[in-house]
């Protein structure tokens, strides 16, 4: 009983003083409550019986609601402050861009603030010249944001993203910028990345435009498909999609690439009408390994 009660009280107080660092809070708590605990214990001792228990329960509940209220109000306040902070930072990033650049020491601090509040310091306006000639920071900034969005979503989509979705992600990130980001802007920004090699590109699948951010050389989807084809020697698009749960564009792109690389062959002649992708070059039973296990060899 005593233990439970002091446990609850302790929990409440820890909740309320949550803003203290944990170790600090704990030592502080212990210091104060070594004193408070004793009277509490005495109180329980003095009031045995049902009424005592009920009273303790009620008190406990009250403490708890109070604690929750405090925490809630505080979180709300913080959220509000963060919003103000963000807004001001965004304004400053735009208004004083060049002044900030000139002060190395302050620039570092400004970046830190932006990063901590989740503000994107890249928010140049497109402006007339950028629109007309494609010069200025706008398209470069957009390029960085586009790559970033691709990187962030890569675990979910394997480096393939619909241009529309990409635009939406980037636009959300740039919400302060006055002009909206269009798909055309995205295409131009991606065009600026050409110098960095050909891995990053836009291509069309059906009526959709997809952006590929992983170059073929680093794409592990192909490995997974090869792995799937181990047993039978072939896969179909539907099989891959069912087994891996990839979005349709991703499956097609991977199979197309394997075809183009000369690793797969198409067979449309199957009675079920599904196109099969054969992998004749892989030694069917997969016994080829560095350890050099003996095997029967591929069936040809």
């Amino acid at each position, binding site marked *: 009983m005593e233990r439970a009660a002091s446990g609850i009280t302790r929990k409440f107080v820890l909740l309320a003083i949550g*803003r203290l660092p944990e170790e600090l809070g704990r030592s502080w708590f212990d210091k104060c409550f070594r004193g408070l605990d004793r009277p509490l214990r005495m109180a329980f001792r003095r009031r045995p019986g049902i009424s005592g228990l009920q009273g303790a329960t009620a008190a406990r509940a009250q403490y708890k609601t109070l604690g929750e209220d405090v925490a809630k109000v505080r979180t709300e306040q913080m959220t509000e402050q963060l919003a103000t902070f963000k807004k001001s930072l965004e304004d400053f990033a735009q208004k004083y861009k060049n002044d900030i650049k000139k002060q190395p020491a302050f620039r570092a601090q400004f970046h830190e603030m932006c990063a901590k509040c989740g503000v994107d310091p890249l928010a140049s306006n497109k402006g007339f010249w950028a629109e007309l000639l494609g010069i200025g920071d706008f398209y470069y900034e957009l390029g*960085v944001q586009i790559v970033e969005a691709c990187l962030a979503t890569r675990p979910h989509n394997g480096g393939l993203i619909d241009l529309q979705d990409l635009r939406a992600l980037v636009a959300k990130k740039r919400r302060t910028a006055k002009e909206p980001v269009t798909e055309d802007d995205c295409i131009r920004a991606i065009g600026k990345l050409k110098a960095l090699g050909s891995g990053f590109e836009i291509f069309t699948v059906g009526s959709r435009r997809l952006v590929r951010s992983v170059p073929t050389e680093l794409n592990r989807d192909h490995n997974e498909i090869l792995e799937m084809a181990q047993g039978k020697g072939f896969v179909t698009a539907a099989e891959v999609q069912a087994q891996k749960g990839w979005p349709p564009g991703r499956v097609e792109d991977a199979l197309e690439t*394997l075809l183009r690389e000369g690793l797969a062959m198409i067979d449309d002649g199957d009675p079920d009408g599904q196109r099969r992708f054969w992998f004749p*070059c892989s030694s069917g039973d997969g016994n080829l390994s560095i350890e050099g296990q003996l095997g029967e060899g591929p069936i040809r």
Partner: protein
Amino acid sequence: MLLLEAQLSESGRPILQPGEIECQLIDSTDIDLEQETKPPYWNPLLGGIVSLTTHRIIWIERTRKKEPVQSRAFAIPHPAVHALEPPKKGGLKSLFGKQAVKLRIVVGIRKDGALATRDAASAVRVVMVFRNLDSNSDAFVTRFQEVLEAKAWTVIPPTSALPGRAHPGSEPSFSGRQDGSQPSRAFTTAHAGVSGILKREEAQAKQADETLQEAFGDLNALMSKAKDMVALAERIRMRLAGSSGGTGGGTDEGEGSRQEMQDLLLSVGIASPVTRENAGALYHQQLSRQLSDFVGPLLVKSNGMMALVDVYCFFNRARGTELISPDDLLQACRLWERVNAPVRLRRFESGVLIVQARGHSDEAIFAQLAQLVKTPDGTHFGISASDAARALGLPPALAKEELLAAEYRGLLCRDDGADGLRFYHNFFLELDSLQEAAAGQQQ
């Protein structure tokens, strides 16, 4: 040596202390003592790069291309600087063509002849000679004076050793009320109990509001309060991160992964990005070094290989507002070989550019491939790109690149048949050596 040794990174960039920020770079600079009889341990420092930071002035030896030896670096900490004697302008000499500009720095030394950051026994003049006449030495001197006035080294950076690791809602140092790490206030009943906690909460929220309003009045106000604001931002972030985990409301998945990205980038932020303004003619070379230092740890996390586009994004994000263009990035990568960087740029047949650790050599992969073609299956049927991909755990397209590279080296031989391109062990090399051996025996 009178000057202090300074640490350099692997690529030859100065390693800065916490809170230290690089302000200006200038090349072809000598540092010498201005006195007739120089102490025996003194060697003049010739033709190096000088980096002016908020805390020190660092002279870096010029790297020689042929020697992979780490260059040396020496520093004069700003607290040791007593005065600057800027170059005289408009003298008679300036009429006869340009002269190397000399900047004299008066530094304090101790009795034993070492640099003294305080309680100097005497002072000597160190002279810096800017040999490169095109470099902007005036800007350098001005910047030097500014930095000395700012006295950034007197400020101890708060928790900068472990950014983002600060305790959730640690005592609000931004209020200037308490800077100690322990809550030292005496325990009184006024602070105790529920009402005490509530009161304190309220006061704190109010104070944060006020600070916010003051700081964002104009740019100067924000600059003077920058340190406090960083602390406040950290505090709010930690607090909200903690509470949103409990209530689980508001943040969707996309937001979450973005936050992760943000954290990732925060942890690798570059406080002193090399820019055209601070590096001038040294821009690409220094950028190349900085990039190499930056990419190294990233490569470790991503299996020793990264697409150049990804590097572009990470690097620019770490630089904050100091964006570089794709062309500049490419140029910086191309200089890696010249600056002896531990990373290299690689171009695939397809035109894809990737960054690779130099230690991540093809040799290891070639050895594996050579082993693979000697297995029973490999000898009979050869290996295809997909075989190699599975055996080595590489993406097929990359495996194909490696096979082609191994073929180019003469390790493998191709058979371009009906069932695709397959590779076999190259016996021709051994034939040659057999013939040579036979010829040797005959003689």
